[in-house]
C-alpha cells in the first residue's frame, strides 16, 4: 500500500498542504478561493503541519495495518476499504471521539464546524486518481507518495 511520507529535510513549513487538503475536502474542491471565501464554515485540513525549532512536516493518519481507531470505534463508522485505507463513514459517526483517544499518533482531530463537532482524518484523497492532494501541491516535494518500504 502506498503511503504519504514527510521528508523533514525539505519541509519548508509553508502550510500549503493544509490549505489544499482543506480545499479538496470542501464544497469547492477546485478553488482555494471559493473554498475559503464561500464555504459557510472555514474549511479544515486533515493533514497537520507540525513545526518545531528542529524540524517541520505535514503529517496525517498513518492508516495503520492494525488500526486502533477501527478497534475502538463504537459504531463501526471507522473502517478499512479494499485498498487498505482507513476511512471514517460520517453518516455512522456519532462524534464520540473514542477514535481520537485511541489514535497513538494524535492524527484524528476534532473540529468545530459551526457549532457541530466533526472528526477529521486523512482519507488519502482516495477518490482522486492522482496522488493525495497534499503530495501534489507540496511545493518542495517534501511530501511524497511511495509504496511502503520503498527507499527514498
Amino acid at each position, binding site marked *: 500500500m502506498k503511503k504519504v511520507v514527510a521528508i523533514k529535510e525539505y519541509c519548508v513549513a509553508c502550510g500549503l498542504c493544509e*490549505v489544499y487538503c482543506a480545499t479538496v475536502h470542501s464544497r469547492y474542491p477546485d478553488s482555494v478561493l471559493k473554498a475559503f471565501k464561500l464555504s459557510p464554515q472555514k474549511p479544515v485540513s486533515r493533514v497537520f503541519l507540525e513545526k518545531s525549532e528542529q524540524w517541520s512536516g505535514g503529517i496525517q493518519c498513518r492508516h495503520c495495518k492494525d488500526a486502533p481507531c477501527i478497534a475502538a470505534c463504537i459504531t463501526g463508522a471507522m473502517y478499512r476499504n479494499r485498498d487498505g485505507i482507513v476511512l471514517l463513514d460520517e453518516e455512522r459517526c456519532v462524534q464520540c471521539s473514542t477514535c481520537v483517544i485511541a489514535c497513538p499518533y494524535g492524527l484524528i482531530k476534532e473540529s468545530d464546524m459551526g457549532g457541530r463537532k466533526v472528526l477529521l482524518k486523512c482519507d488519502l484523497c482516495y477518490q482522486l486518481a492522482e496522488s493525495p492532494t497534499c503530495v501534489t501541491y507540496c511545493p*518542495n516535494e517534501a511530501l511524497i507518495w511511495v509504496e511502503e518500504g520503498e527507499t527514498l
Partner: protein
Amino acid sequence: MAISLKLPEFLVVRDKERCIECQVCVNQCANEAHIWDQDLEQVVSNDVACVNCHRCVVYCPTRALRIEEWKQDFKKNANWDGISIKQTYLQAESGGTLLIGMGNDKAYPIYWDHLLLNASQVTNPSIDPLREPIELRTYLGRKPDLLKNPSAFREELPPQLQLEVPVMFSAMSFGSVSLNTHRSLAAAASELGIYWNAGEGGLHEDLFSYSPKTIVQVASGRFGINASMLKRAGGIEIKIGQGAKPGIGGHLPGEKVEEDVSRTRRIPYGSDAISPAPHHDIYSIEDLRQLIYSLKEATAYERVVGVKVAAVHNIAAIASGIARAGADIIVLDGFRGGTGAAPLRIRDNVGLPAEFALAAVDQRLREEGIRNEVSLVIAGGIRNSADIIKAIALGADAIYIGTAALIALGCHMCQKCYTGKCNWGIATQQPDLVRRVNPKIGRERLVNLVRSWEHEMKEMLGGMGINAIESLRGNRLMLRGVGLNAKELEILGIKAAGE
C-alpha cells in the same frame, strides 16, 4: 532615540478579496514582512521589512500578493536622485560601509547585447542539430607548445578538464551559500558532465563523492584547504580576485558560520571568515608561480590549476603573466560578476566588462603566440546561451555561470544575500531556510537549464555551419557589432554590422 529617515523600499500589496488568511506568507517570510495579528485575526504587512524576494508572491495559493516599489517621490533632481539621498541617510545613521549582494545592477552597456551572430545562407549550409552531430565538448587545461613539442599528442597530455558543454558553475562558497545549494550544483554538474566550483570555503564531507567533478578554490583565506582535498578534487582554482569586488577581500559574517561551515572551513563556530584582499604569499607575479607550482607538486602534476582574476584595466598584461606563471586556465571575471556580499561602491564602480577583458586577453595571448597553451574561461554576467556563444566567438574556451545557476534554483535577485536570511534557501545557513532548496529539485532545474542552453547553442552553431564548438572559438568574423563606436569595435576585434 533620533528618528530614522529611512523609508520602506517596497510595498506589500495584499488583495483582501483574495486573501484567505492561510498564513502561508507568514510562514515563508524570514524577514517578518507578513505578521499574523492575533487581535485582528488577519495577516498584516510590515512593509519596511520586505526585500521583494517574491517568496510570498510565489507561495500565496490565491495570488493575493504583489510587491511594488514603495513610491515616494523626491523633488526632481537629475543629480540627487532618491537612491543617492536614501543611501546618504543610511550612512549618516549607521556609519557603515554600504553592503550589497549579487552583481552590478547599474545601467552600464551590456556588450553581449551589441553583438550579432552570423548564420549561413546559400554559400555554405547551416547544419540541423536535430539530425546532424554538433559537438560542444571542450577540454580545459594546459596544452604544450606545438612547435617546441610536436609529438606531445603521442604522450599523455597535461591534465585536462573535460566538459560536455562549455559551461561550469562558478565558485560560490559553502558558507556564502547553503549546503543544499552545493548539493544541487554538485549533482547537476556530475549529471551534465561539467564541473562545479565549490568556492573558497572548502568542500563539505557529504559532497566528497562529487569530488571528481569539483573544482576547489584556494583563496586568500585558505579555508578548508588541505592535502587530501587538493588531491581529491577534479581541479584547483587559485582565486586572486572576483569581478564583483576587484581588489577587495570578503567577510563571511559570523552568523553564517554555523557548525558545518565552521568544520568545513576549519575555523571556530560563529567567527567571521575573513578573506583578505591579497594572498599573503602572493605580492607579485613570481609569487603566483610559487603557489601554482606548490599546488602542482602537492597533486603530483595530476590536477589542473587555474587562476581566477577580476577583469581590471591592465588585464591583458596580467593574463599574459598568469599564463607564463604556469596557470593551466585563466578565469576572467567581469565587473558584472555576482557575489554574496560586496561593498556597494566597489561593486558598482570598479573593474571592466567581461566582454572587453576577454577580447583584449585573447588578442594579447595570440599576439604573444601563447593563446593555444592556456585555456580561457570567462565569467561575470553570463545570462543565456547567446551570451555564451558570443563569448566563445570572442575567444573564450568556456564560461562560468553563477547568478544564472542561482536563479535556476529560485533566486529572485533581491540582492540581500549578505543578511543570511535568504528566503529561497540559497544564501543562508539558517536550518529552516536551508531546507527550502530540495537538492533533487535543484539538480533537475540546473540540468534543465544547461540542457536547454546546450540545444540553443547547437542551433546557433548549426546556423553558422559549424559542427564543433572549437571552430567557433575566437572566430570573431561570426560577430558583428551594432551600436558600438569605432574604438569599441576595435577592442572587441569585430566588424560593424553591415561591414
